[in-house]
């Protein structure tokens, strides 16, 4: 076993410093007494309490959370189906096109996705607003869910499900009784990922929105253009806190599940036996 050399430790530490320092500074300065965001003038939580009186901001936050919840939930269903299709069916007509459509949105520049979806909504005469943002978010986040679930399905021992099928379970029943419980942590982290991607998205939402539906990133963006303010730092800190909490829960669930995984797979054998 090789030692963790000093060079390696240094590159990891410097890398993480680079990744985290800006976020840490932003959080620190959200508690700054002064309106000047770069001069420290003492601790204060006044920017947080002011947020509560900002009606339009709270509305935007509420719209964002609803869009994120709805789109993440549907994207998880669609993405899990897409992952199953890719892993279980190695050949069907148009599979190349299908896998292409799953992977392309992962790297597609957001301006293209946003513009093309907007033009679709206009062409089919859909009123733009809450629902069009939701549809757009389902489309681009389901591909991220598909990739997360797919990687779990690949390492899943298929013989368990095959055993269930041999013993007369229908594919649907075998999926819900055997496969889903085992891949559940991946499905859950897919949901969390879809939720945070939707929560964060500025570009696609800006293209596909209509009158009355302003999301939090759109609100933040329009304020950022006017300059850095402690209020924005405070909103951002709250969002970071939510994401950090979600990520911690997701990783704890996954870890607990990993420990139980083998026991589950054995229990699954017992269940069909």
């Amino acid at each position, binding site marked *: 076993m090789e030692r963790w050399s000093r060079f390696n430790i240094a590159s*990891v530490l410097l890398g993480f410093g680079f990744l985290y320092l800006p976020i840490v500074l932003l959080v620190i300065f959200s508690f700054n007494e002064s309106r000047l965001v770069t001069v420290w003038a003492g601790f204060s939580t006044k920017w947080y309490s002011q947020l509560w009186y900002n009606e339009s901001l709270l509305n935007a936050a509420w719209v964002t959370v609803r869009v994120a919840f709805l789109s993440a939930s549907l994207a998880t269903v669609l993405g899990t189906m897409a992952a199953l299709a890719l892993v279980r069916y190695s050949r069907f007509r148009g599979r190349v096109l299908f896998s292409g459509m799953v992977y392309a949105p992962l790297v597609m520049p957001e301006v293209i996705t946003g513009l093309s979806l907007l033009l679709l909504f206009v062409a089919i005469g859909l009123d733009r607003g809450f629902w069009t943002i939701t549809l757009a978010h389902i489309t681009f986040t389901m591909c991220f869910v598909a990739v997360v679930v797919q990687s779990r399905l690949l390492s899943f021992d298929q013989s368990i499900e095959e055993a269930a099928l041999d013993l007369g379970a*229908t594919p649907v029943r075998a999926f819900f009784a055997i496969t889903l419980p085992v891949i559940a942590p991946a499905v859950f982290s897919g949901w969390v990922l879809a939720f945070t991607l939707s929560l964060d998205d500025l570009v696609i939402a800006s293209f596909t929105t209509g009158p009355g539906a302003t999301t939090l990133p759109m609100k933040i963006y329009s304020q950022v253009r006017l300059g850095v303010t402690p209020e924005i730092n405070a909103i951002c800190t709250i969002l970071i806190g939510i994401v950090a909490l979600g990520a911690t829960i997701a990783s704890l669930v996954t870890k607990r599940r990993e420990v139980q995984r083998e026991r589950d797979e054995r229990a699954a054998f017992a269940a069909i036996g």
Partner: protein
Amino acid sequence: MAKLVPALVSRLVIIIPYAWLLFFFLVPFFIVFRISLSQTAIAMPPYTPIFDLAEGLSGVFESMRELSAANYVWLTEDVLYFNAYVSSVVIATVSTFLTLLIGYPIAYGMAKAPRSMRPMLLMMVILPFWTSFLIRVYAWIAILKPEGLLNQFLLAIGIIDQPLIILNTNSAVYIGIVYSYLPFMVLPIYSALEKMDHSLIEAAQDLGCTPIKAFWRVTFPLSLPGVVAGCLLVFIPAVGEFVVPDLLGGSETLMIGKTLWNEFNSNRDWPVSSAVATILLLILVIPIVYFQNVQSKSESGGR
């Protein structure tokens, strides 16, 4: 009959997401292409109609005749668009290279970390990816501006005697892209390095390779799939990047994502922005198809 129903149900697993992606991902591109051939009109939506179905088949032919490449001609006539495409590709290429240069040692260090620490390190790389892109870019404004934290720090320790101008220049765009896309580079390289069989390096060293030579002869080639995937994950979205050049860049920063946004939101010229998007997509088609091949290969390699 009893057998047919389950077969149909399992087919639905393919059909539903397939239909969804066809309708919401593929079809829109054809609409973009179609509208890029229309003319701007003062109406809502602001372009000449796609098809006038009320007039039947002759109406379809009529609208076909009205198609024009005028928007594409317009793009070639104004040198601004050409420069924006070239400079986007250049900025994306340089940023990808810088991200690789910074990301590789991090991934390498993580892969060499004690096994018990690796899940935590991995989590720490993924976490910023889950934090808002907009917020992470925004955080740099307070650091880079002339009276910002970086300049305060450098002035205090006496390295410089007047503030550096970084915000609203291309340097800030590079910093922003490298910073926001770093996790995309580290993760694939880490997973390639982590899978590597360490005994190969020992073998190379036993056969007389110096550690540096062993790295270039054995480790780096084996990590190449991760490097390629990471570079594509950074390069392709970076070419069309909007948030970073808009918030950190200045008047000298010319990027096509920002041009498209302005064309659409400020000028309300939908046909021209569609033409801009079509050409951007044509530029990115080769790297995107290449990325899909890399992905499908890693997918079948996992079995």
